[in-house]
């Protein structure tokens, strides 16, 4: 049977789990029949055929088009704006600036305390908003934008965080470019730790700034109906957008409806409203028309977030037996022109991944004249991993130990960096490393590489690394409403967005598992503040562990009511009833059975409503995902070209809810990690202009399908987490991209003997490093 058959073999006639007594939480599933199977996405056809309506597809007959006029300079004062020419152009219906009535608004930058004006006269980064225009066609809007005459006083800029603290650097806010006091952390005594070490290594590392560039652009359609505003936004969270827009416009939350059923990717850059959302709302109000405002691809490179660059130094001490004695880490980072978490979580892995009694971290965040950072798939972690995993690799070599064994020697059983050393509900770190190594054939590959002298200029190398993710356990609040209709079909109402990760599919599977319903009889309504329940944004790899227990609770509630109705009609004890194949039957009296649509009580009521809430996480324990990755590369020792041959990812993210979407996340995370490691970087013109050089998909080099290794093996590790939540699921989307770049770097070192400490590892760097080493020889 094909996997895409609507009547899936594994969904035929399985017994649903026991129903807990009222007030009791459901017990962990012992055996599952739907959960964990490779079920294709419930909306796969819609997404692939183009019939899914994404926010950028939303259209109304009277809709007009908005555009943002952005500053072309990274640091400039707007001295005068003349919009008269633009206003007279054909099709133009509104031009708004900071001096337009109602547009003189305060903008709060997320992830910090920075505030500015919506249209701030001081443009502190290229692309910051100066004016908004609405016109009948996108072309007219663009022409009008070009006709707005802005007189700028162009100011000196600093776009390199490494120069931001120079006395000569222009100051972006306040008295110098420090965002605040350094972020520090300390436990034990690092000096004592280094004194105890047999080997101490100190290395500087740098990761470049990355841009999210999701497939769907950032933007929305905004429409007013009296004093009610509806926004169709490409977002990871409709409720945060509602809150941001209501806050800026001074409106009651109830009057702002945000809808985002489908969305084309965000990776952390769509966790809140953008200035564009507010500008679209203002333009819609000014014109009395629905306004569609999606930024251009180029604009999204400038103003919708990034993974900030990190300049790191890591000093590490180890004993000959592999015991880590001390880690000392510093980082200089930048979130751009406003407070935006430029160093957020960059040191977390140093603090918490490996057992180490003496740790000190100091991270400094500075302002530069560039677009603000936003969370980017595991904020901070891939950067910290780049330093930590390469250092561990170097330590292992220095003490002549297998890097796998060095890591296994230092597996913590509790979270060292959190107050009170709380244990994890489960830590699959050890198992990830062991099973991943076995699946990769690590020992054999290492032995073979050490025993054979490689001939020719193409050299093979292998590398590995491990990770954990700071959160990933989900958390309250979440409310789910599940409606079972009289024909046995169900409607699942959930506020959360599906970023394209398969959230909707996983939730439908939870309902199917619990109620024995067919997947195609479950319809999901989601991501609409007017019609679906409250949910926080889909970010932090929290969506499945947050929503799935609430969905399960709602399904259990429906089941209780359903079985009660059936027990009354079958005149039997509710305890004896179970559901199979859409039929309710008694385990004691085989004659007593009834199909769900035949229940009179259900017909009468029309619907059973079950409400589920996300309960609290276990107290005093942490729910974190773990992982280990292994890769093989081939490196051209003359040109520095790197080919990633294969990857193995052993990830512990609790229960595998859907093997197909699970593996897709693994492939996607590794692909993104390849981008960090090999090709991606933001390039700012540091000399003359401070403008971004590579704000397009040609010059900003994302890995394409042809850059992804043919062989990516996903090895799920499920230690059976019975404490995390009632489904046992943890987040996967972020942990799976954390160690990838460092793992490639370790493999490149293994192949070449050259440690590339700065991303990206392209021939631009590696060819020169290889040549310099040859020259020195």
């Amino acid at each position, binding site marked *: 049977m094909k996997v895409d058959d609507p009547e899936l073999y594994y969904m035929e006639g399985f017994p649903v789990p026991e129903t807990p007594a009222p007030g009791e939480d459901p017990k962990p599933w012992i055996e599952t029949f739907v959960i964990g199977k490779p079920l294709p996405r419930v909306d796969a056809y819609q997404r692939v055929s183009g019939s899914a309506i994404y926010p950028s597809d939303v259209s109304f007959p009277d809709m007009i088009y908005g555009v943002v006029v952005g500053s*072309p300079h990274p640091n400039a004062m707007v001295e005068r704006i003349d919009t008269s020419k633009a206003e007279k152009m054909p099709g133009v219906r509104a031009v708004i600036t900071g001096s337009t009535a109602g547009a003189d608004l305060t903008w709060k930058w997320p992830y910090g305390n920075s505030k500015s004006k919506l249209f701030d006269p001081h443009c502190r980064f290229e692309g910051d908003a100066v004016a908004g225009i609405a016109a009948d066609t*996108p*072309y007219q809007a*663009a022409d009008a934008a070009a006709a707005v005459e802005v007189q700028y006083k162009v100011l000196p800029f600093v776009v390199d965080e490494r120069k931001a603290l120079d006395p000569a650097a222009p100051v972006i806010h306040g008295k110098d470019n420090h965002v605040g006091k350094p972020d520090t952390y300390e436990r034990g005594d690092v000096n004592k730790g280094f004194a105890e070490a047999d080997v101490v290594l100190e290395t500087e590392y740098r990761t470049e700034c990355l841009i999210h560039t999701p497939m769907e652009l950032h933007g929305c359609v905004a429409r007013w109906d009296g004093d009610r505003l509806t926004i169709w936004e490409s977002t990871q969270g409709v409720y945060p957008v509602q809150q941001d827009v209501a806050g800026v416009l001074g409106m009651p939350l109830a009057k702002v409806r945000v809808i985002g059923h489908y969305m084309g990717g965000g990776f952390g850059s769509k966790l809140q409203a953008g200035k564009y959302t507010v500008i679209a709302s203002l333009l819609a109000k000014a014109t009395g028309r629905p306004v569609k405002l999606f930024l*251009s691809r180029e604009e999204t490179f400038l103003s919708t977030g990034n993974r900030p660059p990190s300049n790191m130094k890591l000093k590490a001490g180890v004993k000959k037996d592999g015991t880590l004695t001390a880690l000392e880490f510093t980082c200089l980072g930048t979130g751009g022109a406003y407070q935006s978490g430029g160093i957020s979580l960059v040191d977390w892995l140093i603090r918490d991944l490996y057992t180490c009694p003496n740790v000190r971290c100091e991270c400094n965040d500075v302002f530069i004249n560039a677009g603000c950072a936003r969370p980017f798939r595991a904020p901070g972690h891939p950067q910290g991993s780049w330093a930590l995993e390469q250092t561990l690799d170097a330590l292992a070599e220095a003490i002549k130990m297998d890097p796998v064994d060095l890591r296994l020697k230092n597996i913590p059983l509790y979270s060292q960096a959190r107050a009170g050393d709380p244990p994890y509900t489960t830590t699959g770190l050890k198992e990830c490393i062991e099973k991943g190594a076995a699946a990769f054939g690590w020992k054999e590959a290492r032995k073979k590489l050490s025993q054979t002298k490689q001939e020719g*200029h193409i050299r093979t190398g292998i590398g590995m690394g491990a990770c954990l993710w700071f959160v990933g356990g989900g958390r309250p609040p979440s409310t789910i409403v599940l409606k079972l209709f009289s024909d046995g079909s169900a409607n699942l109402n959930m506020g959360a967005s599906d970023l394209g990760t398969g959230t909707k599919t996983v939730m439908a599977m939870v309902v199917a598992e619990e109620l024995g319903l067919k997947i195609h009889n479950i319809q999901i309504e989601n991501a609409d503040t007017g019609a679906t329940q409250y949910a926080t944004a889909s970010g932090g790899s929290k969506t499945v562990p947050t929503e799935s227990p609430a969905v399960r609770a709602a399904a259990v509630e429906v089941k209780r009511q359903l079985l009660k109705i059936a027990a009354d009609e079958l005149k039997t004890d509710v305890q004896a009833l179970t559901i199979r194949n859409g039929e309710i039957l008694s385990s004691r009296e085989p004659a007593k059975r009834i199909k769900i649509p035949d229940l009179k009580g259900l017909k009468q009521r029309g619907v059973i409503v079950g409400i589920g809430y996300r309960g609290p996480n276990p107290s005093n324990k942490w729910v974190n995902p773990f992982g280990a990755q292994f890769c093989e590369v081939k490196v*051209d020792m*003359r*040109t*520095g*070209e790197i*080919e990633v041959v294969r990857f193995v990812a052993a990830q512990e993210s609790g229960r595998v809810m859907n093997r197909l979407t699970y593996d897709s996340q693994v492939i996607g995370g590794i692909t993104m990690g390849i981008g960090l490691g*090999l*090709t991606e970087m933001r*390039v*700012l*013109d*540091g*000399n*003359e*202009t401070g*403008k971004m*050089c*590579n*704000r*397009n998909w*040609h*010059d900003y*080099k994302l*890995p*394409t*399908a*042809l*850059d992804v290794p043919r062989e990516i093996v996903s090895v799920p590790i499920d230690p059976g987490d019975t404490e995390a939540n009632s489904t046992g699921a943890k987040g996967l989307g972020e942990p799976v991209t954390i160690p990838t770049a460092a793992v490639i770097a370790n493999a490149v070192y293994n192949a070449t003997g050259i440690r590339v400490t700065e991303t*990206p590892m*392209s*021939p*631009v*760097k590696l*060819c*020169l490093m*290889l*040549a310099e080493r040859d020259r020195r020889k």
Partner: protein
Amino acid sequence: MMPNFSYLRVNSLEQAVEGLTSPETRVLAGGTDLLGCLRDRIFPADKLVSITRLDKLRGIEETADGGLRIGALTTLTELIDSPKLKERFPGLAQAAGEAASPQLRNQGTIGGNICQKPRCWYYRGEFHCLRKGGTLCYAFGGENQFHAIFGTDNKCCIVHPSDPSPALVAFEATVRVVGPKGTRLVPMEKFHVLPAENVEKETVLEQGEIVTEIVLPKPAAGTRSSYRKVRARRSWDFALAGVALAVAFKGDKVERARVVLSGAAPVPWRVKEVEEIVTGKKLDASTIAKAAAATVKNAQPLEHNAYKIPLFKAVMEEQLTAMAKG
């Protein structure tokens, strides 16, 4: 956002030439480069003359002397798939195959490929650079990791983006150009223009002129050829460094060699120093080492592209070594 333009689809070459009435009229063939340039507003265009219906400009034919004539509208994919090309001019087929992505090769034409606009991010971006009539080349003091190490004349350091062009120069091809004054033949080596000559032009084409075909002379007996390209992104990218070779052997000795680089200079860059070293010699290790060193002897790297020195040496050594093996 695309600018406004008028669109004329012609049915004959004469109509096309007549249609090219102003400097702001542009020829549209595959459109893979032109449409991007228009969207990015790199140069004005008030009229596009589409020559896509001129089927006479499509296809690969044999010439009387045993060479090939390639119509300007022949797509890169058609070049790659041509058995005649693969057999007699494998280096050119390889170069076409190394260009762009499969989708772009299906659409992009060889005529358009040799007339491409540079990919310098200052030229393509919101920078009023020298090549766009401004007063400054931003790349010399700026972000120049993908820029030229030869032929910049301290004016403009673009690299010519074409992969087939260096192979065409190596095979001593000729470009047929039709314009208001009639037809002229331009040797491929003279087709591209250095900044010293004209910093705002990449080719010798004058107002109203169209490339109609490229003629490849029959290669000398014993000719081996190749094209090798190194990219920052392996799957799809312009060249960091590329080397096109067309080398005629007599016995085990090189009789005649054409060595042309891509990703090196504002035009396909012929390195006569290498040609002279290998001509008359056996391609042994010492000759190859000398040739590799000579490749970059006169290079003038910028602040961020010094890696091109070892890279070109490496590729030259690799390719000559491979060629020596046959």
